[in-house]
């Protein structure tokens, strides 16, 4: 992509300095995302244009590349944020297929971990988006992802609340929501399946999961303690059987 963009610019002040900046940016991104490294061709050496133009351009190009990445992060999470009916867990299969399979920002294992971290932090579980955004594009990506995932529901809440009576009595809206409810249950099961596939490697994991189910159902323990408890349980088992 960097090479193509270079070819498109037919400026004669594009020179060795700029190519190296681009190459460094590209190598950094490639190292992060484990992609194949593209070859950067040397463009014709600098012409007689001012060095300042080269400098400005060299700074602008990595920013432009970063902006493209940020844009894809933003678009993805805005889309996610608009359809998470029925709670944060519903987004799990969807985000997984996008972030892991399509954009390659994380592995399946890392995604499962991100979900667990999202549970452990206070606040809604959608905050997992922050983690994914960070892995995709650094701190800025984390910010963009967070804003992206919460913005649609924010706007929709304001819109619906402002016309609350019309929203409530709208027959179509209500039946739409009634249709979604059972589907949410199915979606949650799919989410459990993907996390289970990615995160549980052994029978020990399965038994911890079963124990957790028991604790959750039988006692009114909050999710946070169950997750932490399970983590430390696994850790303890590891120490005992070393």
């Amino acid at each position: 992509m960097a090479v193509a963009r270079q070819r498109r610019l037919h400026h004669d002040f594009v020179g060795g300095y700029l190519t190296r900046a681009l190459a460094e940016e590209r190598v950094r991104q490639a190292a992060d995302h484990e992609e194949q490294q593209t070859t950067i061709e040397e463009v014709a050496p600098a012409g007689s244009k001012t060095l300042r133009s080269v400098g400005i351009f060299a700074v602008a190009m990595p920013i432009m590349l970063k902006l493209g990445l940020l844009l894809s992060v933003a678009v993805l999470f805005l889309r996610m944020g608009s359809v998470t009916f029925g709670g944060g867990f519903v987004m799990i299969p969807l985000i997984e297929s996008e972030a892991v399979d399509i954009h390659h920002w994380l592995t399946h294992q890392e995604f499962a971990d991100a979900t667990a971290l999202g549970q452990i932090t206070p606040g809604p579980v959608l905050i997992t988006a922050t983690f994914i955004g960070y892995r995709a594009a650094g701190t800025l990506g984390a910010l963009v992802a967070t804003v992206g995932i919460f913005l649609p529901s924010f706007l929709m809440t304001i819109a619906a609340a402002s016309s609350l009576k019309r929203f409530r009595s709208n027959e179509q809206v209500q039946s739409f929501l009634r249709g979604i409810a059972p589907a949410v249950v199915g979606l949650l099961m799919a989410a459990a399946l993907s996390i289970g596939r990615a995160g549980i490697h052994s029978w020990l994991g399965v038994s911890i999961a079963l124990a957790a189910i028991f604790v959750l159902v039988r006692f009114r323990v909050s999710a946070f303690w169950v997750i932490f408890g399970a983590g430390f349980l696994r850790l303890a088992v590891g120490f005992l059987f070393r």
Partner: protein
Amino acid sequence: MRRRVRDARAELKRISRTATLGGIFLSFLKIGLLGFGGGIAVIAQVRALVVRQRRWLTDSEFVEGFALAQSLPGTSAGNTVTYIGLRLRGWRGAAVALSGFILPSMLMMIGLAVLYRHLRNLPDTDRLFHGFNAAVVALILVTAWRLGRNILSKRWQWIMAGLSFVAVVVLNATVLEVVLAAGLVGI
């Protein structure tokens, strides 16, 4: 009659004194910081703060907002917070309330993401996350079961649930497609 009007005016004045933009921000910041325990617990905390402690909303207003929050996309906690902020101080209040609520967990998550990079490959961390993941699966299953208990009563609902599961797992449908299709079926 005059006394009632006077009381109402005093009440409004009290609300506007406590529910300033900064006050809203800080209150929800506190909740965002201490709101462990998942959806229900957080909502309970919000209710305790807003209805009983600060008396910004009546209980019925709160319930109305919560019902609305659940029927929209996004988390019910987040939407409820947005609603409360909106009722108190318009869109600015809503923005400030949600930001305060989200900010602590966002910062925490960024910190965790940074640490994750460095610590993930240690065998101890590996085991820790193994436990975490097992618990998360359990949590999702239990949530699904509880929801299912409430929602799945008629046959078509069971079929919907089964279909959406199959659609995502086997056919790789996106959530958007499933949600839209399900909603249309509802209509």
